[in-house]
């Protein structure tokens, strides 16, 4: 008996997985996680591009200690080609920085959206994964950036304020973008297993308030813990030195946490 086989995917279908990194609250280490996670993924053999989707308000340039002359701003205004704006970052991945000139784009116009969409279309076939480092909060820019992604990662810390904002973000993404799978990384945990507890708490509130509010037939919203990153003075040290943690102190506990997140992301 012959069984039908799936036709091989066309070569053009090979496209980067797009992961939006968001947080709700600022200052939880979202950009730190984006940059170091990109480095960790690169170590695992992935071609990674980090895109500053905060349009000039992110600190990606500070974290990476890169202050390029050519940025996304120049691509938008037609002064430079996309290729010139994509830079190699210290961790073995590529980065596309917005540049402070993009502050004027913080109001999300149709042009900005089209430009971003176009850029992602162009770069998607060249990478295995694109990380969108979004801004803090739940502004329309953030929601739009997240809407471009196939997967979304929420970074939270055990701080009650961070947890509340992470929950608010998850709620908006579930109700507004019909996202039923949310990945979670808990940063700055003070003891092992805290991430699991926090995931459980978020999941509990989501089950009680978010999933029942969705239209009938919607998949229940599920929060998946990708990992936890312990409080580690090495992080502060690396940030102060404006270096990637994975480059300078790859053996520290926080770096191990990030490597574990990358491992979980790459293993299906």
């Amino acid at each position, binding site marked *: 008996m012959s069984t039908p086989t799936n036709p091989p995917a066309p070569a053009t279908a090979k496209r980067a997985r797009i992961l939006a990194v968001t947080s709700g609250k600022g200052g939880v280490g979202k950009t730190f996680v984006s940059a170091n996670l990109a480095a960790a993924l690169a170590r695992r053999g992935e071609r990674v591009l980090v895109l500053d989707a905060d349009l000039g308000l992110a600190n990606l340039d500070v974290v990476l200690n890169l202050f390029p002359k050519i940025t996304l701003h120049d691509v938008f205004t037609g002064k430079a080609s996309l290729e010139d704006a994509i830079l190699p970052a210290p961790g073995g991945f590529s980065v596309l920085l917005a540049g402070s000139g993009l502050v004027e784009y913080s109001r999300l116009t149709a042009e900005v959206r089209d430009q971003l969409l176009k850029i992602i279309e162009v770069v998607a076939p060249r990478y295995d994964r694109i990380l969108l480092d979004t801004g803090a909060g739940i502004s329309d820019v953030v929601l739009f950036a997240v*809407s471009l992604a196939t997967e979304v990662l929420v970074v939270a810390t055990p701080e009650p304020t961070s947890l509340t904002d992470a929950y608010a973000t998850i709620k908006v993404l579930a109700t507004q973008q019909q996202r039923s799978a949310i990945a979670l990384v808990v940063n700055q945990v003070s003891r092992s297993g805290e991430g699991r507890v926090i995931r459980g708490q978020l999941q509990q509130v989501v089950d009680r308030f978010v999933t029942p509010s969705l239209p009938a037939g919607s998949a229940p919203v599920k929060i998946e813990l990708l990992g936890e990153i312990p409080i580690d003075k090495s992080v502060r040290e690396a940030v102060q030195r404006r270096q990637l943690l994975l480059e300078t102190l790859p053996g520290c506990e926080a770096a191990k946490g990030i490597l574990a997140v990358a491992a979980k992301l790459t293993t299906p």
Partner: protein
Amino acid sequence: MEWPVTQRTGPLWLIDPKSASLEALRCPKLAGNHVSNRFVRAEKALLDWPAITALPVSHPPAPTEHSQLKLGAALQLLGQSGHPLPELNDVGSAVWLQAVIDALCDLSSRDPLTGLANRRHFELALAREIDRVARAGEPALVLMVDIDRFKLVNDNHGHAAGDLVIQAVAQCLMECVRPMDTVSRFGGEEFAIILPNCPPAFGQQVAERIRRKVEQREVTIALSQVLNVTISLGGAFAPQWVRSSAPLWIERADQQLYRAKSEGRNRACLEMPPVSLVSAEEKGLLFATSQFEEEDHTSNP
């Protein structure tokens, strides 16, 4: 040479039986003068002509093909569509063809009872709106409208009165919206309205305006018999930035309509735009079992 003449509401049409071409003659004096057997024959032949052909008028194809739209049927279509009649001597030309296509499109997208967009047109418009919202992220609202206790109107006053009520409500809806909005008869006594670029802050106002308009409207269903009806409205905004699906969007608006009905009818319920606010109840549960309970403790009762 003798010309058979036929009179229509507009200009007079002359048919040259020899060349079989048509000519419009704007001469009211001729009206009704040349009614003869010959004219009737000519007129009948005219109506059986193929209405859509790329051939020039002077060489119409033989009127034998059954599949072709006959001129008579085409004229009827044009009349019903309310489009201005094109010159009849353009029959077969691109102008005429376009007029017939326009009329067909128009008729196929309209509800015959109310003249509103029909369900088919609504679904097309909704798909277009979803595209627009996904691209531009503009807020867009869908309102589902249902006449309250409509069955009672039919049962107590007959279906003719029911039709009059539906027509009156349709008119109210049309009077309350902008030209860019799509008002459609969704089915039975249910209507659906698409309001592109409608900010959440205005949604409730629009819905309320429509509700009030219908409430105040007196529908004359017979000589000195006036009826008042009310409607319930449910509304939902399109999710921004993402491609929603038409059934999902409609369902969300429908849910609000059910809410309006269950809360007592004659009201408008809109789905609140996604709230990023976290309620006290949610916070309570979020920190209920947490290790932060003491830190987060407040003296609020």
